[in-house]
């Protein structure tokens, strides 16, 4: 349980920080798709004698790299390219799993996750990715903010827009892989999207958004983990349900009619 709590804290820091950029940059579908797109990597990991996280990482980075390449010229939208690659990755994984190799229990574990049964390697990976998310937000936060706010002017502002975007997608792919053992490929959004989406409803500045997102991610993952432990539930779905409930409450609270603010005309 102690190991699960440590992992939940590390993954919550990652989810809170990167989730903020995922939500602001409208990459929620990408984050979900990157998790599911690791499927073919997980299928071939066992038969090829590769560590499952490494195979998932290769699949996730390939997904991010192909997406960046397809969308570079602007002719294909990010959503359309993500859907295209997601369908391709799932189809490849299904063919490999059903006709070429037999999928083992390891694949099931990574598809559905088990926060209460993590290895030391899983824990170290979660800690390393959390440290990377903190460092990247400190170093690249301004670049990600300027590029997301005003893509047309980002380069003229002197920020490394293209490099920043590439690093963001790569870091998201790595974070997805670190999150897989805990909540599974199908529920990575519970940590990488839901807390930040909830914080987005409650805050109006980038600093408070980052902080609120981390606090919510920690609260939701620890609460979900405790519920799973005491009620004998799978941890990933328990965290997702808590996150969904908090989002619903925040949406209801912020949907209450407010007094309209004066708006200047000039």
């Amino acid at each position: 349980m102690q190991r699960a709590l440590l992992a939940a804290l590390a993954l919550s820091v990652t989810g809170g920080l990167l989730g903020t950029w995922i939500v602001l940059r409208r990459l929620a579908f990408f984050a979900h798709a990157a998790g599911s797109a690791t499927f073919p990597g997980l299928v071939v990991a066992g038969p090829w004698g590769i560590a499952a996280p490494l195979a998932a990482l290769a699949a996730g980075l390939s997904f991010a790299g192909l997406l960046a390449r397809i969308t570079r010229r602007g002719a294909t939208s990010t959503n359309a390219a993500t859907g295209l690659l997601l369908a391709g990755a799932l189809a490849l994984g299904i063919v490999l799993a059903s006709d070429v190799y037999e999928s083992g229990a390891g694949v099931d574990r990574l598809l559905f996750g088990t926060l209460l049964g993590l290895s030391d390697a899983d824990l170290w990976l979660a800690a390393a990715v959390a440290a990377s998310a903190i460092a990247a937000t400190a170093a690249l936060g301004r670049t990600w903010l300027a590029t997301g706010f005003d893509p047309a002017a980002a380069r003229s502002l002197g920020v490394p827009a293209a490099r920043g975007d590439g690093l963001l997608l790569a870091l998201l792919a790595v974070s997805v892989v670190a999150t897989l053992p805990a909540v599974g490929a199908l529920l990575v959004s519970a940590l990488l999207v839901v807390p930040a989406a909830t914080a987005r409803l409650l805050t109006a500045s980038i600093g408070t958004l980052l902080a609120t997102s981390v606090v919510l991610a920690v609260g939701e993952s620890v609460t979900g983990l405790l519920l799973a432990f005491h009620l004998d539930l799978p941890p990933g779905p328990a965290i997702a349900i808590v996150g969904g409930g908090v989002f619903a409450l925040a949406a209801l609270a912020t949907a209450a009619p407010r007094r309209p603010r004066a708006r200047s005309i000039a």
Partner: protein
Amino acid sequence: MIAATRIETRGLAASYGTSPPALSGVTFAVQAGQAVAVLGPNGGGKTTLFRALLGEISVVAGTLTIGAATAYVPQTERSRLDFPVSALDVALMGAYARTSWYRRVTSADRATARAALARVGLSEQARTRFGELSGGQRQRVLIARALVQDAEVLLLDEPFGGVDQSSEQAIMGILDDLRDEGRVLLIATHDVEQARRWDRVLCLRGEQIAYGPPAETLTNAVLQDTYGAEIVMLDCGHRAVAIQHHHH
């Protein structure tokens, strides 16, 4: 005194990647303290010219010389209005290029950003969320950001698009001041009457049609070549209206 040349192009052609040039045959020079209207239809090459001047796309023929720091002021519709940033946050983006990745924006740059917002008449709105400002106020915030960049050349992309008349007058006054202190302004527009107001006009339609003082350059023949069937002449040829087809 001879004013310094800030921008000079000779036979400039620019293209996106390996595609054929989107703009070609552009030859003009702009001195410090001049404002140039860049006039043309949608797809005529105004944005392509700006991107070439910013070094964002390849110059595939001719030469291009820019002797000063350059800032781009986009249309406000291109910005994300739902982003959690205030007017001050946006103005501060102009200081990002001179801020090391491991440092916070300095208090001196904060003071510069506040002064830039004051200069465009938005001191009171510094803490207001960018998306809550009117179109004219947003445009002024983006001009303030260019001032924080300390740019001597400003490339303004349709700065009067979607703003009301009083905001247009306010923005016009700010641009006059910037020009008077020696900055170079290139103002992309499809408004022929607006173009007559500036020192020079550059007419583009995939290539350069004409360049010079508006009174000599904006002849009926040049406008017909620039806009083709999209131009309507009024008042026996003394006024011209460009019919724009907006792409959604």
